[in-house]
């Protein structure tokens, strides 16, 4: 079976900031797992995220939808989301969809975390 998967990890940076590292492909099969992972962190009171997508080899509209949904939820609590990606294809998709204006995308985790301070 052509099953894709996604690995997800979270660590704390500067106390209230969660650095979520995603590794794999985010599509219609795996995006519910990402949504669930981030959703549970929000449910526990984390509202500030740096999402590291440097190891995301593929993302489609369902993955973008998860990021938009997460952003909307944390903004309701005064939170924020920054992204980390240097993948040209990922950046292209954010550019085409106009989401480049919605998300701040950085080249390193340090930059993404510093932007949230």
């Amino acid at each position: 079976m052509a099953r894709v998967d996604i690995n997800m990890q979270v660590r704390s940076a500067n106390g209230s900031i969660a650095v979520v590292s995603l590794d794999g492909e985010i599509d219609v099969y795996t995006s519910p797992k990402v949504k669930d992972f981030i959703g549970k962190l929000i449910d526990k009171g984390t509202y500030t995220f740096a999402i590291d997508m440097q190891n995301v080899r593929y993302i489609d509209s369902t993955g973008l939808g998860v990021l938009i949904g997460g952003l909307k939820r944390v903004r309701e609590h005064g939170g924020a989301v920054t992204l980390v990606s240097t993948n040209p294809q990922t950046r292209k998709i954010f550019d085409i969809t106009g989401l480049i204006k919605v998300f701040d995308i950085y080249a390193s985790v340090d930059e993404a975390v510093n932007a949230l301070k």
Partner: protein
Amino acid sequence: MMQAREVGAEIPEIEVRIPSRAEWVALARLTVATVAARMHFNVDEIADLKLAVAEACTNAIQHARESDEIVITCRIYDDGMQVIIRDFGIGTEAERIRSRDLGEPRVGGLGVYLIRALMDEVEYSVESDSGTVLTMFKRLGDSNR
């Protein structure tokens, strides 16, 4: 607007059928990527094709009710690849082919927008009681032919 193209024995055709379920979309996009690589599409063009095919399959899974399978057909032409995505579900034209307005960020609705942005020609044929056929074409860059 889709340009009329020759169909028949002279045109190589690759077809794959997948169950209309999320875990099989990766097979559809990898199949199309493999065909595209053999045609010497470049890396960026192959990524565009993969995403467009995945978006089309995702759209079928999410909106085509009572459809058990999706048929993906690749036709190889001298100037590019035609990809036909066919499902057999029930769904209204409006909900299937609506391309979203890029205003306020919201969940969903980006798939059709991406397909139209990434492919050179896109045409939907929606029959409310027998399914949807999406025909799209990606041109080979001049340097790749």
